[in-house]
């Protein structure tokens, strides 16, 4: 498993030292609130409703067991025993005391963890398919590319003060688990007609009040040219992006205003000046080393005589939470952190330590995090899946609802976030209570519900089968419903169903939507397939009748 070397670790410590000096100056009144805000955000630190929140990066969603234990220690020592796994491969701690931040970050840096650029108007944590390297048909494992690009834009002198935040996702797999076209910039690994490896580049995606799907600005950029192309994209954004309107800061507004074609032309014009600069070429020697560092720690095994255990509950869990691995003899196991009454994505320090221990026993000490706020064990021997399930059962971590609507994605909402307009977690709990019947959940099958507490759309409600957006109406909490968004097979922004629904009635409305789906479903059609076939009207008629 890839780990930072001594130079990288030292860099993390130097960054903490620098931030600690800035914090001291701020506390001494030598650095004003506005500048300190800008600096603390670039170190992952937010001021939330009740306390400071720290967002720690989990680069490309890959964690080692010691790293997870380190996060558990932080949860105990500096938080209230919890961590919140986010939709973008980060973990957040919601109860941080400002004077303790430097010590906290130093402890994390011991395990190669950091909060650099997890917030602020700079390149954020670069996300990858959480199943990178594990599935059939993948062009390449995206993580070595994520790491090289992450490094390049780490405290980049020219692009650390952009008009708005800049989120990048990279996908090398057939299906898009990264939702790359709702990112500011998405890279898809592709091969051209000559078999050369490169990237298709998509720019200007994003959710929020104006949800947009990224436009393709280049169909094929050779691997070694990607840094110069990205620099040109950011240079055009840095110089021409909107800075005059708080709600139009993201690159998607620039792409929309210029038009994707003109934006691409400007990028290309700039890129022609730098594409042959040898100093901007991706370091292919380092890339090869990283590919070795990220190579799978398993070899195919022959489990000839192996027979799967027969157990009703195990079968349900396995059917939903376990998927096939490209390496013979292994499975990929998904562990849900969403359960009744708990905030989606929340894990206690005890759960983190249990997962760290189990990952060492069953998954080569490696874990992945996903945009559905789940934990993946990437290397479980097929003949050990049952044993793992038994252990998970013991610790109440074998919730068998992966992929079902009970596995809701929700932001912290108004319970924790000072931007939120409405609560998210209590709505998630009420929906789960309404569907708290495994037979019913299995009958409904794959269906996702995402709940965002405000237009910032941290829970990606636009791209869920059923999306709920919290808002205020006459001092009361209401929820706008969007239907049939998706990113896995293609990228589609969900359609607004109609007028928002009160918090009191929203769970009834969700149930009605599900019932309309079941009523019209043919064979094993997915929600989006039914929606495409019958349109929005049957849903609208039932919800607003």
């Amino acid at each position, binding site marked *: 498993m890839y780990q930072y070397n001594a*130079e*990288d670790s*030292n*860099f993390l410590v*130097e*960054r903490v*030292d*620098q931030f600690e*000096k*800035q914090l001291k*100056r701020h506390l001494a009144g*030598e*650095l004003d609130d*506005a*500048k300190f805000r*800008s*600096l603390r955000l670039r170190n992952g630190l937010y001021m939330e409703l009740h306390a400071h929140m720290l967002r720690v990066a989990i680069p490309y969603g890959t964690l080692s067991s010691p790293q997870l234990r380190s996060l558990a220690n932080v949860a105990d020592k500096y938080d209230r025993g919890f961590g919140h796994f986010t939709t973008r491969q980060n973990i957040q701690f919601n109860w941080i005391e400002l004077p303790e931040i430097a010590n906290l970050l130093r402890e994390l840096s011991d395990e190669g963890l950091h909060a650099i650029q997890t917030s602020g*108007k700079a390149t954020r944590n670069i996300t990858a398919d959480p199943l990178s390297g594990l599935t059939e048909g993948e062009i390449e494992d995206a993580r070595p590319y994520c790491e*090289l690009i992450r*490094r*390049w*834009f*780490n*405290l*980049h*002198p*020219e*692009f*650390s*003060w*952009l*008009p708005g935040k800049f989120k990048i996702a990279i996908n090398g797999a057939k299906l898009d688990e990264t939702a790359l076209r709702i990112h500011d910039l998405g890279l898809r690994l592709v091969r051209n007609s000559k078999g050369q490896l490169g990237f298709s580049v998509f720019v200007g995606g994003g959710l929020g009040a104006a949800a947009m799907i990224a436009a393709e600005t280049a169909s094929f950029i050779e691997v070694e040219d990607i*840094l110069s192309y990205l620099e040109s994209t950011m*240079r055009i954004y*840095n*110089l021409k992006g909107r*800075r005059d309107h708080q709600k139009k800061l993201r690159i998607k507004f620039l792409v929309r205003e210029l038009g994707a074609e003109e934006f691409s032309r400007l990028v290309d014009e700039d890129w022609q*000046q730098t594409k042959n600069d040898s*100093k*901007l070429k991706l*370091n292919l020697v*380092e890339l090869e080393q990283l590919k070795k560092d990220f190579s799978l720690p398993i070899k195919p095994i022959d489990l000839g005589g192996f027979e799967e255990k027969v157990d009703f509950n195990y079968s349900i869990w396995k059917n939903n939470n376990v998927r096939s691995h490209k390496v013979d003899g292994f499975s990929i196991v998904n562990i849900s952190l969403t359960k009744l009454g708990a905030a989606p994505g929340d894990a206690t320090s005890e759960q983190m330590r249990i997962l760290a221990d189990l990952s060492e026993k069953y998954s080569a000490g490696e874990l992945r995090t996903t945009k559905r706020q789940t934990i993946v064990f990437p290397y479980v021997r097929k003949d050990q899946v049952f044993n793992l399930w038994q252990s998970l059962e013991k610790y109440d971590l074998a919730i068998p609802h992966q992929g079902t609507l009970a596995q809701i994605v929700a932001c912290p909402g108004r319970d924790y976030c000072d931007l939120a307009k409405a609560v998210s977690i209590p709505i998630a709990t009420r929906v789960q209570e309404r569907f708290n019947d495994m037979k019913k959940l299995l009958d409904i099958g794959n269906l996702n519900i995402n709940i965002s507490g405000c237009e910032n759309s941290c829970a990606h409600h636009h791209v869920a089968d059923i999306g709920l957006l919290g808002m205020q109406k006459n001092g009361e909490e209401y929820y706008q419903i969007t239907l049939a968004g998706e990113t896995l097979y293609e990228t589609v922004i969900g359609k607004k169903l109609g007028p928002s629904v009160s918090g009191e009635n929203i769970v009834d409305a969700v149930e009605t939507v599900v019932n309309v789906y079941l009523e019209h479903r043919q064979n094993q059609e997915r929600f989006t397939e039914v929606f495409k076939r019958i349109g929005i009207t049957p849903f609208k008629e039932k919800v607003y009748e």
Partner: protein
Amino acid sequence: MSEILQIESILNKEYESVDLVSFQEWLENIDKLSNLSVGVIIGPSDDVSLIKGHFDFIELIALDFNNFDDGRGYSQAYLLSKRWQFSGEIIGINAHLDQLQFMIRSGVTSYILLDSYIGLNEEDYANGFSICYQEAVNNSGLQQKY
């Protein structure tokens, strides 16, 4: 690459006896000012490409970094120094201590801090790291690792 200079003040609009004019003033009086070898103050929203054909007549360029969150000056510095090879001084004016590392590495060759930073140790902020992860106009003594 020029040494990093520290200039006490340009409030009197003089720098080694060079007159400084605003970008707008310079654009409106190109013919007249071209004979005087003036320095030009460029703000974040100014289109720096408009002066690239006139470098022979410009003694120095002052980029205004007063707005802490406005990062256009870094791209302006890069374009002037690296791409268009402006050989005169590129001064970062109204500079912030915490952004020196970004300014210098983007191509600024000297700077004038805002008054509020006087008395603080600039070295801590200009050279807080031992490595950097990317090619830059001036790596400022950092070992490059990527």
